[in-house]
């Protein structure tokens, strides 16, 4: 039902108020978008900075400082994906083992699978990342019976 159906003809004042409310809602939506963007950036920053001071970080983790921006972990993921595509699974695992827990966590988040617990195990994060790589490879896999 449209606005002119609800309002009696000539009631332009009420119509004007409704328009203003509509505009304000649009502005609030924009503000909300910007706040979310800032929130996401802050969260990433917290994850990046958090490793050295985390009580649960292992000694090995502390020795491996976070490198990490969202862009760089995605570049690493792309390297891993290509290695996996070429059948170099061992190298993928070695590379993941060499990464700090913070970077693994950030990679999980950037791949759209934030670990469910606050302090996820490395094993869990490994599984999540390997799962994503596997999906990527399987998406383009096509077995042609003729070529078997």
């Amino acid at each position, binding site marked *: 039902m449209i606005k002119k159906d609800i309002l009696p003809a000539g009631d332009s004042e009420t119509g004007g108020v409704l328009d203003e409310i509509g505009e304000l809602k649009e502005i609030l939506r924009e503000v909300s978008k910007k706040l*979310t963007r800032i929130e996401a950036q802050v969260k990433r920053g917290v994850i990046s900075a958090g490793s050295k001071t985390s009580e649960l970080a292992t000694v090995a983790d502390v020795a491996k400082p976070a490198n990490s921006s969202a862009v760089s972990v995605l570049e690493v993921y792309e390297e891993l994906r290509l290695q996996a595509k070429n059948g170099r699974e061992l190298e993928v695992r070695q590379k993941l083992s060499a990464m700090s827990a913070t970077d693994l966590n950030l990679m999980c988040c950037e791949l759209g699978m934030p670990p469910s617990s606050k302090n996820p195990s490395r094993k869990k994060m490994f599984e999540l990342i390997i799962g994503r790589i596997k999906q990527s490879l399987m*998406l383009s896999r096509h077995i042609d019976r003729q070529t078997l």
Partner: protein
Amino acid sequence: MSPKSIAVINFKGGVGKTTVTWSLGNIISQGTDLEVLMLDLDPQMSLTEAIGLNENTGHLDDKFGKWYEQSLKHRLTIYDALEVFKKAGQNFKFPVGFDTIYQIDEQLHFIPSVEELYWLDLDGFEGKSVKDFIRQFSGKIANSPNLPKYDLMLFDCSPSFSLLTYSVLSCCDLILIPVNPDYFGSRGLSLVLNSLQKRIEPYPFPKIAVFMNKAKIYGGLLTNEVQFYMREVKRLCAEISKDNNIEVRFLESTIRESVGLKRAINEGELPRELVREFEQLWRECEEYLK
């Protein structure tokens, strides 16, 4: 000039083929001067049901239902046309008019699906004999003096590889593939593209466009998960284009996941933000079709 044809398809069910067809049909017919014909080729009949539910008559009068009953009674549905085509082949004669095509409004018309489409295989139809059906049927519509000169035909295809899907894909101008930000929704793309070249052998080869549908948004931004699948699907499109020497374009338009869309198809108008997104999708398709 014959109308441009777009087939909305994905071999995975539930990716939103029907809502995309319905929304595009509405957006184009309301926002441009184009005459649009939508065709429901899916025996699940979701689009057909939606047209019946969505009629804005203001009362309970079932205008579409009554028209549909007459169309079935007088054997004027797309299934009946297909039966005639099977027997007659190149001498195909079928009276296309407003008994076969339903007028939703001035610029948006519709050919509904029928249950019998489920049983095409059992009814003795074969791929070879059906392949040219949509080409010939569209030709009849385009040349009919009793019908408007449609600018665009939009096909809502079934999620499986049916005989009618085969017929549409072998002759349409654009194959529009909605994918979802999940593994199975994205995998359907790979299945369509592989079967297209190896099994369907369309002529001329259609353009193929892929876009992300039902994208989750958080605070106005695409979630990381959506972005992951967008990158993967984009890469898949590029790989398939390169390996098979065909043009598969990943469109920038993204349609968000929205309860409003599901409601709109049954109850009324599209939410405003979705109107903008579908308008953008149409602009990209139109540009690509040139």
